[in-house]
């Protein structure tokens, strides 16, 4: 087991605290079922360094893990890692968590580029991302929350304090997924053809309430995989095996 990055500096009143979903991503990405797949996609020495993007890194626990343990996970340490979160406090947390983890594992660590505040992948050039990781807001809710204007611009009042309303909005943004819990995830799925490089792969976390079998079918039917290729979507990790809608899974999406 590779060590989990330290997140004790993260303000959990403003940023999603690592939970079962986060740990399922860590376990799956570093599992013996995924590491040979990843090193076959990005053979070290003969191919350019892969760009790893995490959308919504929150505390940074997953992105820092991938950065610090680049060598055992990707079979190479020349990887570039980037985060994009809508919550500016998550961006600062992710930066601290990733730099700390990287400096604690200097011999296996990749290169952390930074964490940007943004809405999904809107600010990225097309086809740059080689590995996309997303633990989305996946809980089915009546409505999808929007970011209040105060939080678009850094989010602190003059005195440096965040209001209670803004605090609860940030936490809502971290879990509330709207209809079927899929409103944000669907936007990411729709953009995969544009965002992923030709050798790219995405790891998405879904809960049972997201109707994962239907989601995978929809992905396999997407028409934009390119000449002679098809979208693949397979479950590569699960947790909480008992019946009930909280059961989680990781779906791997790629073209073949």
């Amino acid at each position, binding site marked *: 087991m590779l060590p989990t990055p330290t997140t004790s500096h993260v303000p959990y009143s403003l940023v999603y605290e690592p939970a079962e979903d986060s740990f399922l991503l860590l376990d799956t990405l570093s599992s013996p079922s995924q590491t040979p797949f990843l090193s076959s996609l990005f053979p070290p020495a003969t191919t*350019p*360094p892969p760009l790893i993007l995490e959308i919504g890194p929150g505390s940074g626990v997953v992105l820092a893990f991938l950065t610090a343990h680049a060598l055992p996970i990707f079979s190479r340490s020349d990887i*570039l890692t980037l985060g994009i979160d*809508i919550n*500016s406090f998550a961006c600062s947390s992710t930066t601290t968590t990733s730099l700390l983890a990287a400096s604690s594992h200097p011999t296996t660590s990749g*290169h952390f580029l*930074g964490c940007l505040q943004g809405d999904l992948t809107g600010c990225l050039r097309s086809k740059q991302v080689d590995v996309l990781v997303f633990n989305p807001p996946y809980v089915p809710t009546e409505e999808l929350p929007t970011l209040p204007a105060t939080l678009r611009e850094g989010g602190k009042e003059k005195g440096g304090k965040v209001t209670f309303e803004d605090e609860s909005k940030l936490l809502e943004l971290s879990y509330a997924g709207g209809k079927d819990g899929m409103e944000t995830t669907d936007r990411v799925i729709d953009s995969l053809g544009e965002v992923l490089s030709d050798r790219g792969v995405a790891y998405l976390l879904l809960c049972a309430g997201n109707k994962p079998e239907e989601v995978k079918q929809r992905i396999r039917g997407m028409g934009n995989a390119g000449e002679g290729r098809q979208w693949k979507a397979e479950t590569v990790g699960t947790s909480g095996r008992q019946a009930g809608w909280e059961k989680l899974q990781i779906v791997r999406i790629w073209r073949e």
Partner: protein
Amino acid sequence: MKVLTLNFLTCAVKSCKSSSDSFPLHPKDAELASDDVEVNPQLLINLLPRLDWKALKTTSTELGFPQLPDSPPTIEDLQSDEKLLKDLHSLLMETNLMEGKLVCGVCGHEYAVREGIPNFLLPSHLV
């Protein structure tokens, strides 16, 4: 954010993306900070094929770094030209953009950068 990141970013306004002037974004009033990173020639050699050289050259000039050659160096160039290797290492691997703005060449929108974090959220009239 490392300066290298600019090679992957464009304006977040949808209608700007089809224009080649939305990339790279142009730093304005930039405050930079430098990390000490060990030089890794192999990393730079592997990295070059995936970078847009013309955009990198623009970024380098705009940030006041030494002029880069017009065409990307070959592996042999990098192995023999120690100064070029050092310049690229310092620009790509060591330099962080901490404060300032990133400006789109098409719509002119200025994305603020604070404490190393650029903000790409758009005001509602641009979404």
